[in-house]
């Protein structure tokens, strides 16, 4: 989480219109593609319903499928580790790295390793960490962090990327995309061949086979899992599907929703380390299963958020995300899903603003491939922020007053009369001045309509008397 208050982060983001334009057009373009490619399914709605059923069933029986996954992966020669929280997860990976004498780590894209702040922990032990997903690689070189869970550097222009590559990698400046790709590719090829440990995330873990599934567009996931002598996959506890058939349903939706592709270029299933009869592959394969607040979510009325398959469609469609970008959220997980996940993982007090940073327009719910009712989850978290006293005093006092007004027709009429008086004293028309205190946020962007001299209900009573 960021130390800067949410409002200040938002204001900082709004000061950079070029960046916001890049984010807004990137998000919109991704969502337009998503809409087109989703329609290439014979029955997109039926597929989404099925995917939701699979996720709901899996989350309802998570204990059983995790145990099945562990048994099958262990039979394949892999090792499963359980991490209650971020500290434990980091320590498990560090212990493996130390034991095998890792000096250089190649990583493919993983949000959960961002969540547990793994890179910094490895680097503190003197271990070199290289991000190999192109977007993550750029973010790492720029000393930046991802602003989007699928497109980490949606906020950067190619000119900015050209300057980063020039300064950090000593490449001649270019803003041509093929040239930039080539620079990254040359650097990373060397990394794959020399890394002694590969770290990946896990898009899905398949219980019946003990496999983990990785989807990438650059083939970096394969390099990272095949070349180094040790492979460590870090997965959120909920990333499981029961069967390969279930996986195929999820894969049909993941790339479509995320990047508007029918499938990503590479879909890799990793079943374990190199077997005795095999020539290639890592000597050891580990899967670290991270809870870090997920079982708390499971036990609450927010469990539905665990259906999420991290496609990012809710970010792309969200008008708030488009207006402020990912960094303003101050969390590893931005956008609507982030506004639910962040308070669950990091605690309500640390992220009390995020559930309120939504107009509740519901575009996220419509976009979600597994139809997570994000607005309702945000509402339940808002109730939680009130219960925990995380709301400003003026608002709580205002709500008490509002309750008094709206539970008594007499007080309601009185309030309407006071409003009408305010309107009469300020010229009888739309109010152009500034309202005091928090209400000033209304008049900074809008005029306020005049109160009626007589409410409709008064008029109606008078009409009834005349009839």
């Amino acid at each position, binding site marked *: 989480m960021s130390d800067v208050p949410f409002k200040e982060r*938002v204001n900082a983001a709004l000061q950079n219109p070029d960046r916001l334009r890049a984010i807004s057009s990137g998000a919109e373009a991704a969502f337009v593609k998503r809409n087109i490619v989703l329609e290439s399914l014979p029955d997109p709605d039926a597929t989404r319903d099925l995917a939701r059923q699979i996720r709901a069933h899996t989350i309802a029986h998570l204990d059983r499928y995790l145990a099945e996954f562990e048994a099958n992966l262990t039979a394949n020669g892999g090792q499963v580790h359980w991490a209650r929280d971020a500290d434990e997860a980091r320590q498990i990976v560090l212990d493996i790295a130390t034991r095998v004498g890792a000096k250089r780590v190649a990583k493919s894209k993983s949000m959960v390793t961002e969540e547990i702040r793994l890179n910094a922990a490895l680097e503190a032990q003197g271990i070199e960490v290289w991000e190999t997903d192109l977007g993550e690689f750029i973010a790492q070189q720029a000393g930046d962090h991802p602003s989007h869970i699928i497109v980490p550097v949606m906020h950067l222009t190619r000119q900015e990327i050209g300057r980063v590559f020039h300064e950090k990698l000593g490449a001649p400046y270019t803003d041509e995309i093929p040239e930039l790709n080539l620079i990254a590719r040359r650097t990373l090829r060397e990394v794959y061949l020399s890394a002694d440990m590969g770290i990946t995330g896990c898009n899905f873990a398949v219980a019946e086979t003990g496999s983990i599934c990785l989807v990438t567009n650059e083939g970096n996931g394969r390099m990272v899992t095949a070349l180094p002598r040790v492979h460590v996959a870090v997965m959120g506890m909920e990333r499981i599907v029961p069967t390969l058939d279930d996986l195929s349903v999820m894969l049909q939706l993941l790339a479509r929703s995320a990047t508007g592709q029918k499938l990503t270029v590479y879909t890799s299933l990793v079943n374990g380390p190199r077997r005795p009869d095999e020539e290639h592959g890592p000597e050891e394969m580990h899967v670290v299963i991270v809870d870090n607040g997920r079982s708390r979510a499971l036990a609450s009325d927010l469990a539905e958020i665990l259906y999420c398959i991290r496609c990012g469609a809710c970010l792309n469609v969200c008008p708030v995300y488009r207006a402020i970008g990912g960094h303003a959220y101050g969390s590893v997980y931005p956008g609507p899903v982030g506004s639910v996940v962040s308070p669950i993982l990091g605690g309500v007090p640390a992220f009390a603003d995020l559930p*309120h*940073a939504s*107009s509740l*327009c*519901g575009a996220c719910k419509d976009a979600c491939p597994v139809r997570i009712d994000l607005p309702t989850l945000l509402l339940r978290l808002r109730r939680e922020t009130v219960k925990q006293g995380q709301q400003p005093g003026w608002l709580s006092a205002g709500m008490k007053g509002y309750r008094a007004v709206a*539970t008594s027709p007499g007080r*309601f009429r009185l309030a309407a009369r006071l*409003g009408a008086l305010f309107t009469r004293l300020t010229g009888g028309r739309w109010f152009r001045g500034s309202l005091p205190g928090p209400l000033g946020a209304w008049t900074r*962007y809008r005029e306020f309509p005049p109160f009626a001299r007589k409410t409709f209900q008064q008029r109606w009573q008078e009409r009834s008397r005349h009839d």
Partner: protein
Amino acid sequence: MPEPPRNVSLFVTCLLDTLFPDVAQAVVDVLEAQGVTVGVPAGQTCCGQPAFNAGYWDEARAMARHTLDVFGDSDEPVIIPSGSCGAMIEHYYPELFKDDPEYGPRARALAGRIVEFTQYLVDVLGVTDVGARVDASVVYHPSCHALRGLHIDRQPRALLENVRGLRVLEQANPETCCGFGGVFSVKMGEISGAMLHNRLDAFEATGADWVVGVDVSCLMHIEGGLRKRGSAMRTKHLALLLAEGIR
């Protein structure tokens, strides 16, 4: 087919009652022109949505109980000229009272009775042409809670299409939120303001006279923004447009 119910109760809603009584009158006028008998149960205040959406569920529950008491146990349809208040009652009253043996059943009953104004005209009465004539150009802004919460889009569009003299223009990305969001518009004023400006640009690019919608809350936020930037464009609730067109 059974005869559609023509005795209805009107839930005025707090904003129409105190800020836009002409819109409430327009709703009555349009309904009465269709031979509908409109009653307005006395003592109405607010459905509680602003408190509910801000996380103040105890306060919201108190207001919702008041509203449930006002509308009583009749089975008349309750016509509501607001998609967001309608969605509040339909979806979230049952959630608010799900463990309440007294108000739970009443909340579910009212959720079943609530009908948004254009839904009632088009889906219940089967009327898409009220015989209005209005010489103007408009864009229709589908408010989010009407659109996604109650699936209201074709009903207002059908009513607009049948207004003689009216030109209905299309703005870019019509289904994008205007940024109102109740308390959000004040609490997160900067974000709300940025979203509003994006929408105003899209509306103004059409050159229409009015932004028409079925939610005065979004419309007052939009018109407030239009006025603030000195635009000549205005907003109009669909009921008012129809009522003026049949006068």
